[in-house]
């Protein structure tokens, strides 16, 4: 048992933190949001050159053969800098979709490029109601065969759609049933619109309008599809949670900085217990969340059952985000309401993830299920 980084993990964390400080100051975070696609090719090239998209991919598939724990080290540090990138979906849905999917040829063909970050993968999984992942079956479907199905779907909040090379799509196809597909972005019939989201990853509504589906696109079908999606979604949850922990660390750091420098009633704000104790609670909860997230990743790395740990971690991170967001804005006051201050860049990103993959209640029920309730 050792809940501290080993030397390699510490080196990795230091190097990512150094990279963020050097290459990705907060001014650049603000800039990128205004880009047409919200994506910075230059950054991405640097990130993948460092191998950060491949940390947890086995060496035989072109990865670094590290663990998810190491991958989380990267994500947490990127979160501290609010450095958005298609990393989480490329890893969770791309690399692990291929790794854990049941399509050997797709794995052989795509995984090396995906692991290397040369092919960006995004997740087109959320149905347009923002809740379901699997469509309600419609009776009115186009003709199909097992080899050539046609995809009709509208997916929402798809990150980095305009920059993606592949979409991982959850759908239901007649004759195949539930399916997880890996659709190349250049396939005919894909239309997209960037959605208006105040901060954070660029999000898109993506319409798959009578898009051809080939047998080679199917990563998994039937029960295996549901299982594969669950695996990828769980990974995504953990990666996102680590990123969120990083965001929360920075929100707290900005708050502490403010509490130390802002003088009211002749004392720094932080000398008021009501302020200091909010900071103490944020600190404690962020650290607890962090350990829970790392534990879930470690269990997965070891091949243990991580379902309970993952669900508990997601429930905890949701509570932490709500707490950190409320407390930090309370302490920053009007200053935090101004976009000139950086706080909202962290809190709003974190809030956006709070409800992704289902919020607190959903994960508490998952915990309850796993407790045998």
């Amino acid at each position: 048992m050792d809940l501290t980084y080993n030397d390699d993990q510490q080196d990795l964390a230091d190097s990512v933190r150094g990279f963020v400080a050097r290459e990705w100051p907060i001014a650049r975070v603000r800039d990128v949001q205004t880009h047409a696609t919200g994506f910075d090719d230059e950054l991405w090239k640097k990130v993948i050159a460092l191998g950060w998209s491949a940390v947890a991919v086995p060496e035989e598939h072109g990865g670094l053969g590290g663990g998810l724990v190491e991958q989380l080290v990267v994500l947490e540090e990127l979160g501290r800098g609010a450095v958005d990138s298609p990393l989480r979906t490329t890893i969770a849905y791309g690399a692990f979709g291929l790794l854990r999917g049941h399509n050997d040829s797709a794995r052989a063909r795509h995984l090396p490029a995906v692991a290397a970050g040369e092919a960006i993968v995004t997740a087109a999984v959320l149905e347009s109601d923002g809740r379901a992942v699997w469509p309600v079956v419609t009776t009115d479907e186009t003709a199909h065969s097992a080899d050539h199905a046609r995809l009709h779907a509208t997916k929402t909040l798809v990150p980095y759609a305009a920059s993606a090379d592949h979409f991982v799509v959850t759908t239901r196809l007649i004759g195949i049933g539930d399916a997880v597909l890996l659709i190349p972005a250049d396939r005919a019939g894909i239309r997209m619109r960037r959605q208006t989201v105040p901060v954070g990853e660029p999000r898109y509504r993506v319409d798959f309008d009578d898009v051809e589906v080939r047998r080679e696109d199917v990563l998994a079908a039937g029960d295996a599809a549901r299982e594969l999606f669950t695996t990828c979604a769980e990974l995504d949850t953990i990666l996102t949670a680590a990123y969120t922990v990083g965001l929360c660390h920075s929100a707290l750091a900005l708050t502490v900085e403010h509490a130390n420098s802002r003088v009211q009633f002749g004392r720094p704000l932080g000398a008021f217990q009501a302020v200091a104790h909010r900071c103490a609670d944020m600190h404690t909860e962020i650290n607890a969340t962090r350990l829970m997230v790392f534990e879930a990743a470690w269990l997965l790395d070891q091949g243990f059952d991580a379902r309970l740990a993952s669900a508990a971690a997601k429930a905890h991170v949701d509570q932490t985000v709500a707490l950190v967001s409320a407390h930090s804005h309370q302490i920053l006051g009007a200053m935090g309401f101004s976009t000139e201050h950086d706080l909202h860049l962290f809190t709003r990103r974190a809030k956006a993830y709070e409800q992704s993959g289902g919020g607190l209640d959903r994960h508490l029920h998952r915990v309850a299920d796993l407790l045998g309730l």
Partner: protein
Amino acid sequence: MDFAFSETEKTFREELSTFLDQEVAEWWRHLFHAEERTIPTSRELAAKLAERGWLTMSWPPEYGGSGADAWMQVVLREEMWSRGEPRGPQYMNVNYIGPLIMHYGTEEQRERFLTPISQGRVIWCQGFSEPDAGSDLAALSTRARRTADGRYVITGQKIWTSYADAPAQWCFLLARTNVDVRPHQGLSLFLVDMAAPGVTVRPIESLIGTGEINEVFFDEVEVPADCRLGAEDDGWEMLRTGLALERIGVPWYADADRFLERLVAYTRETMVDGRPLSEDPRTRTRLAELYVRCRAARLVTYRAVSLQEKGSATALESASAWMLGGLTQQLAGQVGHETVGALSVLHADDPDAPMDGWAQFQQLLAIPTTIAAGAIDIQRNIIAQQGLGLPRSN
């Protein structure tokens, strides 16, 4: 005890409600929703309210009112806030700027300033906060020097000044006239013409968009002697009264109530896994919690008004009312976020945003509600010290 509005009040609510249903534009969301149409639209509505005698109905007839009691005023405020305060910035005029001028102003000042307010023709902004004086207003450093002939020359900077860019014609300004006394004793209130030379307004970009919130710079701005309100160095005492009024004056619960109503409708029409979201246990209890908090905030406000009517109100009750209102608004933001789920990140401008992006907006609105009018910690101090007799903690 009597928990009902009178027949007169009910009739008035109906009449007002009918009027507002017709007059308030479909797109109107909230006075804190920065967009170009907001201010002109609210000006128009305020003028129409004035025509009907509803803008300043609690004022005495000589200043354009009809002497309505506090409960008529409560009805008015609730109807306004349950529609996102379509009076726009002018709610401040009616809630406390006008009343303070009425109470402390000279006869000449009353005539000069109250009539335009009662006609809905003027926008005021409040010049209190400074970069180094937020909750601690006594620390403000904007300086008003008196000249030999009795005028004042004002220099300093205000910040978080809402509607200065509306543009506001007047600023209700707190400035330091005396540096030789204890900090909160050397402050005076001024009625400052925003068109005076030396006044500069710089909009601050905020989470609700650009505009509405500003920095205001005063560079050697000359203010005539007759634009000081009340006695010199008496500003702090006057303002304390005014801020207590403002705390009762903003029925956040009415806004949260309206949002709750909208959420109830949303959950009924939203199907999740083939069943209405309104059947989901968590959603049900979260909306119920919001309802309970709204009802509590409403009653605590009514209690504050009851005591005010009896002349026995203290800062305590308005602090409680304000605190519960703010917390209710904050809860509304969180409950909306949870209820709408992942799509609540979509801004109102996005066609895919559920409830026209209302949940997104309400989350942002939740942020300033526990900050404005003195941070919530200050309200708790007031309750602990003035209400419970605990010692000062600072």
